[in-house]
């Protein structure tokens, strides 16, 4: 079981890297693009979608209990990763 908070930290790190690339992308676009409606509109759309996704995810994350733990491997597949021969809460006897 992995605490959910660890995944949030990983998400925030990836978001930081993403923000770095977005910043460079915007600088390139606004520095080298032609002044005009299309440049401003496409840049606005790019930023607006990012803001929507980050805000939407952020609002959802506000309600999440980050102390909760999560199992990456589903219960039914755990026996594949050395978790015993348990399938559907039933011990399976393997005849030798």
């Amino acid at each position: 079981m992995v605490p959910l908070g660890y995944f949030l930290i990983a998400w925030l790190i990836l978001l930081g890297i993403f923000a770095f690339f977005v910043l460079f992308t915007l600088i390139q676009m606004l520095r080298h693009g032609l002044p005009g409606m299309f440049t401003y509109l496409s840049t606005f759309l790019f930023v607006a979608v990012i803001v929507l996704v980050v805000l939407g995810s952020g609002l959802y994350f506000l309600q999440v209990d980050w102390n909760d733990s999560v199992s990456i491997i589903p219960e039914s597949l755990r026996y594949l990763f050395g978790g015993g021969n348990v399938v559907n809460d039933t011990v399976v006897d393997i005849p030798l």
Partner: protein
Amino acid sequence: MIDLSNIPGSRPDEQTIFFLRRHWFVMIPVILGFLVVLILPVAVYYIIRAQIPGYFDTDANFTLYVLGASMFFLYAWLFLFQNFIDWYLDIWIVTNYRIINIEQVGLFGRTMSELMLYNVQDVTSEINGFIRTIFDYGVIHIQTAGETKRFEFEEIAHPNHVAKRVLELAHVRRIEHMRQGNMEIGPAA
């Protein structure tokens, strides 16, 4: 930002004849690829629901999915926009004196080169393939005097028309240049 009315080193009587970008159709495969990539998180959601019923019943599992899907979407969106920038910022400007090539190479690279029209010796337009023929776009190769490297306009619209016009402009400029006693007159356009 680039100001077309104030190109560096421009002459008082310099006029922009063509302002060229790669054809819009070049972006279609990128947009289709993006749409396919967009479907992936949704497909993963339905596959998990079908294979492991009840997986998303717990809040923790659903949160894990939201974390992954949102980050996946953000990077896919960035990838699409960078491809758009690569297309949008690659421009070729043909004036009555010169050709200016401004090229975006990845996110951090940018090259700018220019060629005087009186140096142009040969202009070749090339339209290969079904899609290019239907949408009338292709490549123009411009051979200059004394240089082995060719100047290229990649995937531009109406290449035959542009090539013809560049040849005409180059011929006019070559005559002007010859009048100034700089070089011999080349072949007629």
